[in-house]
């Protein structure tokens, strides 16, 4: 299997899960990033704590970069069209579908929500189909 990193993936996942539990235990809310992001833009409800959660999402990696010597791997498409269209669909789709990889994929599945299980299945399948089609046109190798 290519680039397979099960250990760091599992450790990262355990840390993400701990964050979700801490957030729920203390604030009573679900740590769905698309929801938190959309609420910051569209409502005043819990605005400052939502802003602080998003700020933490940026500060966390910065702390990690400056305290560990691990290299930062980041490779993204150089097509502006893909970026704009992709970002637009992620914003529209997650707000219409009420969640993303964290809200549906982690929180919803662990609450055994049928809606979230179906949503996660759909976005993984459509994501895989999209990558497959792009590969046929040589966009991704």
């Amino acid at each position, binding site marked *: 299997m290519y680039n397979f990193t099960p250990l760091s993936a599992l450790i990262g996942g355990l840390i*993400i899960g701990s964050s979700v539990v801490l957030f729920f235990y203390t604030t009573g809310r679900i740590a769905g990033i698309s929801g938190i992001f959309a609420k910051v833009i569209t409502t005043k409800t819990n605005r*400052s704590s939502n802003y602080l959660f998003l700020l933490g*999402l940026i*500060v966390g990696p910065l702390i*990690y970069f400056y305290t560990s010597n691990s290299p930062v791997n980041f490779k993204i498409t150089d097509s502006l069209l893909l970026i704009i269209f992709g970002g637009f669909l*992620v*914003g529209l789709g997650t707000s*219409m579908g009420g969640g993303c990889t*964290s809200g*549906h994929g982690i929180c919803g599945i662990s609450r055994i929500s049928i809606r979230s299980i179906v949503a996660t299945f759909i976005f993984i399948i459509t994501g895989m189909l999209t990558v497959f089609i792009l590969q046929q046109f040589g966009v991704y190798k």
Partner: protein
Amino acid sequence: MSEKLFSLLSGIIFGIGLVISGMTNPEKVLGFLSITYNWDASLIFVMGGAIIITAPAFFLLKNKTSSSLGLAIQLPQKKDLDKKLLFGSSLFGIGWGLVGLCPGPAVSSIALFEPFTIIFLMSMIIGILINKYI
């Protein structure tokens, strides 16, 4: 005050988890979505690792009506598989497959000062506003 403190702390921990898991790298996420060629199953371990922690926690806390800080528990109440869920999740999957970024990693990658992720986030905001007002 402590609600804000714990929100920030939760965000920091989530962000550290994301970067350790490798999911802040779009190439790695695309590796998972590339099921027919050089498949990288790491993302399953990220979700699995998170759910191992969250599933028992949500089960143990399911009858609580207020959080440890005395705030009301807010859980999604919808139960039906409506068109918006199915159509919205499909659109999200397509956008996710086009770039390899979902909302969490998109926000976290601001830490990398990559201009393209800023454009991605601005496009996301337009998508969110269109869903709200149209």
